């Protein structure tokens, strides 16, 4: 049965190829449904794999490697094109294909008016394919391949509207940032090959515990380089600036790639390589620190943005920060659990935002919205559910996963008080910005009366409702997730820590955030102006995203361009080129000097001849 797993790759690939080659000949809606069917098929095959895994005992569920063909054989190095089926990859694939399927369906409604409908679905299928490669890869090489291919799909989809300059620039930024990550992973792969003589997960992870001492230099370097890739893909500080810009793409793209699946690949990577990361506790602290800092920074920026999608984007960064915090403190399956619930409610949030944007005729500024609860009831309800789940309202999906993270930030293997405190603050911020957004959008009165918002068609709202159901109930899957994934993480199931005090504080923080949002945005404008005035400098910094884009521009982009220009004009033209030309010129000068002898006067030639004769004769006589 595992041999069927190739279908997971094959189906989206077929969709991509046929839609991109024959895209114009497909009738419009057929293309969309075809793409959906491909992803749905992949989802079904994944379910099949799940069933297959369940038919085996937990210990046997690991390391089912399927090989298609040998990909390269070089001196002392060989690679097969093969995929790995184990609980982690199936779990991740369920999210990718499941949520992906819903978003595909949603896109049929959302992209209905677009001229390049089929191209969009081709790219979406490409993404699903690439993500499947990433998840299913059985070795680091194909991990990198998938890693870069999702970057490509993300690039294509961010820049889908090629006539929009900001989208084009955002796409390039995303791609380049991701290439930095790819290079990091590439070097990590070399180091892994150097130490293990293989790139296969199975070999490497088996050998890892004995190959290194904890905190060896090389294992630290390997894990750090892997992290460069993970951080770039998951938009963690300092490689995060592409994600907010990536919101220039169509909204379903943001939901699928930049919320539910691709950006969480970094978390997946850490979880996948847990055998390596366990050997490097320092790196684990780094992961947790970066995660929690990103959670705070992104959350704080998200509190003051006005673009509906950017708010959610910063929220995504912040939530991924939580996931990194979770895997960083050593509870991998908690991170994966949050990854799953986050996929549900964040996809829902984005799709809801898309529905709003769709209904508002492509308006994205929340200051121009308001009062949409009457015009768009389904969107309103589902958006509310998503917001509650994101804010961690008790008994929603987000509550369970986030509560476990905050708890483990203190009690986990590498947890400590600082992580916990920062996490709680981030939780509070989450509640605040989520409901700020919600209130701005749906409550109050409409700020642009001329707009005629309307509810989206069923093809868009149906996925919303399904996701809403998952966001409400997904939290109860927690124990199942932990037990299902435990073989991958060495049989460990995260302990449940009964620490009512911490739990109450965390919930209180979330509630506090929500209440603060209510206090500021539901009770009139005065408080808002007052708060802005009081905190003006902080507000400015937050509004401008801590000026990180500007700093990067000043520190990296401009110097790179300047040095490039400098090298072209100085080093190339005046240095190398000039010196080569100068050699030629000097040769010419010397020959011009010698050419005095070539006077053109016969008598001097004759004289030279005589002189030559004399010399030769002298030589003959005296030697």
């Amino acid at each position, binding site marked *: 049965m595992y041999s069927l797993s190739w279908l997971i790759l094959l189906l989206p690939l077929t969709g991509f190829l046929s839609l991109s080659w024959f895209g114009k000949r497909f009738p419009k809606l057929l293309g969309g449904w075809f793409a959906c069917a491909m992803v749905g098929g992949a989802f079904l095959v994944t379910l099949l794999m799940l069933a297959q895994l369940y038919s085996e005992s937990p210990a046997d569920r690991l390391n089912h490697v399927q090989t298609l063909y040998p990909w390269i054989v070089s001196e002392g190095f060989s690679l097969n094109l093969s995929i790995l089926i184990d609980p982690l990859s199936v779990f991740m694939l369920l999210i990718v294909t499941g949520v992906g399927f819903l978003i595909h369906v949603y896109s049929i409604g959302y992209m209905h008016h677009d001229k390049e409908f089929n191209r969009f679905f081709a790219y979406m299928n490409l993404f699903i394919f690439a993500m499947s490669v990433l998840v299913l890869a059985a070795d680091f090489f194909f991990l990198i391949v998938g890693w870069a291919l999702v970057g490509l799909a993300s690039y294509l989809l961010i820049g889908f509207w090629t006539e929009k300059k900001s989208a084009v620039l955002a796409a390039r930024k995303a791609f380049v940032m991701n290439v930095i990550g790819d290079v990091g992973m590439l070097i990590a792969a070399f180091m892994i090959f150097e130490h293990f003589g293989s790139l296969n997960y199975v070999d490497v992870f088996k050998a890892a515990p004995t190959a290194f001492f904890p905190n060896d230099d090389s294992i630290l370097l390997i894990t750090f380089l892997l992290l460069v890739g993970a951080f770039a893909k998951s938009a963690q500080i300092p490689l995060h600036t592409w994600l907010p810009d990536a919101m220039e793409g169509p909204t379903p793209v943001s939901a699928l790639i930049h919320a539910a699946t691709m950006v969480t690949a970094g978390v997946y990577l850490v979880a996948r390589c847990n055998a390596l990361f366990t050997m490097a506790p320092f790196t684990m602290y780094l992961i947790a620190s970066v995660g929690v800092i990103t959670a705070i920074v992104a959350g704080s920026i998200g509190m003051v943005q006005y673009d509906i999608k950017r708010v959610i984007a910063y929220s995504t960064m912040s939530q991924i920060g939580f996931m990194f915090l979770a895997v960083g403190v050593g509870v991998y399956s908690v991170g994966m659990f949050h990854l799953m619930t986050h996929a549900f409610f964040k996809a829902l949030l984005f799709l809801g935002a898309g529905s709003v944007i769709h209904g508002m005729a492509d308006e994205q500024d929340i200051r121009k919205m308001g009062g949409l609860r009457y015009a768009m009831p389904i969107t309103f309800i589902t958006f509310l559910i998503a917001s509650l789940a994101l804010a961690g309202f008790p008994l929603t999906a987000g509550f369970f996963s986030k509560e476990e993270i905050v708890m483990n930030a203190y009690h986990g293997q590498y947890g400590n008080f600082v992580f916990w405190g920062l996490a709680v603050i981030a939780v509070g911020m989450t509640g605040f910005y989520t409901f700020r957004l919600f209130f701005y959008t749906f409550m109050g009165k409409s700020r642009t009366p001329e707009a005629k918002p309307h509810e989206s068609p069923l093809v868009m709202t149906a996925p919303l409702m399904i996701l809403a159901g998952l966001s409400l109930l997904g939290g109860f899957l927690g124990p199942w997730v932990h037990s299902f994934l435990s073989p991958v993480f060495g049989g460990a199931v995260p302990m449940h820590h009964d620490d009512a005090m911490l739990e109450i504080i965390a919930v209180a923080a979330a509630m506090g955030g929500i209440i603060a949002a209510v206090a500021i945005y539901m009770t009139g404008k005065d408080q808002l102006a007052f708060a802005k005035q009081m905190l003006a400098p902080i507000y400015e910094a937050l509004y401008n995203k801590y000026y990180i884009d500007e700093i990067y521009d000043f520190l990296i982009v401009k110097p790179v361009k300047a040095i490039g220009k400098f090298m072209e004009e100085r080093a190339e033209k005046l240095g190398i080129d000039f010196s080569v030309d100068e050699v030629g010129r000097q040769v010419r000068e010397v020959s011009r000097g010698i050419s005095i002898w070539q006077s053109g006067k016969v*008598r*001097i030639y004759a*004289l030279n001849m*005589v*002189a030559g*004769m*004399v010399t030769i*004769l*002298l030589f003959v*006589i005296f030697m």
Partner: protein
Amino acid sequence: MMEFLDQLWSFNLDRETVYGLFQQSLVFIIGMTAILASLGVILCASPIYSALYLIGNMVCLAMLFLLFNAEFLAVVQVVVYAGAVMILFLFIIALLGSKEEKRELSFQNFTALSFVGLLFGELLMSMMVGETKPVLGQVTPEVVQQVGSAKAIGIELFSNHIVPFELASLLLLVAAVGIISLAKFSYKPLRKRTRT
């Protein structure tokens, strides 16, 4: 010289000795004349005199050839060289007009003179090499006397040196063709061409 004076002193003069004496003094006199004539060639300002001196030089050399048993070449020298070639020279001089040349002792000429002086010195040094071991041939003057100079040369030329001889004829042919092609085409004056 000493030998000659010795013999003169002892009055031991027989026919051979006198004949040898006479021949040697002839060589000496004619050789000196030839050198003087050649000096005349290069020192005369007007080419016409140079040409005349050259004729003189050639005739002198032809006489020397006679003294060295090369009658055929002497005749050739006079007929071809002093005759035909020099006539050619004179024609050209007549055609182009003989313009007198200023004599000057420029740095270049001084260098030339010193170099040539050196060369002359070196050539004279070759006289001091002394006795070398000569490889004597079979063609003694007596043999030549028997068959005659022209015939001996002819035999030699057509037997042992046939290839150079044929090549020489080829050379003359090429020269003839060259001259014809030079004479055939008219040239535009070079002056009008601008130098680049």
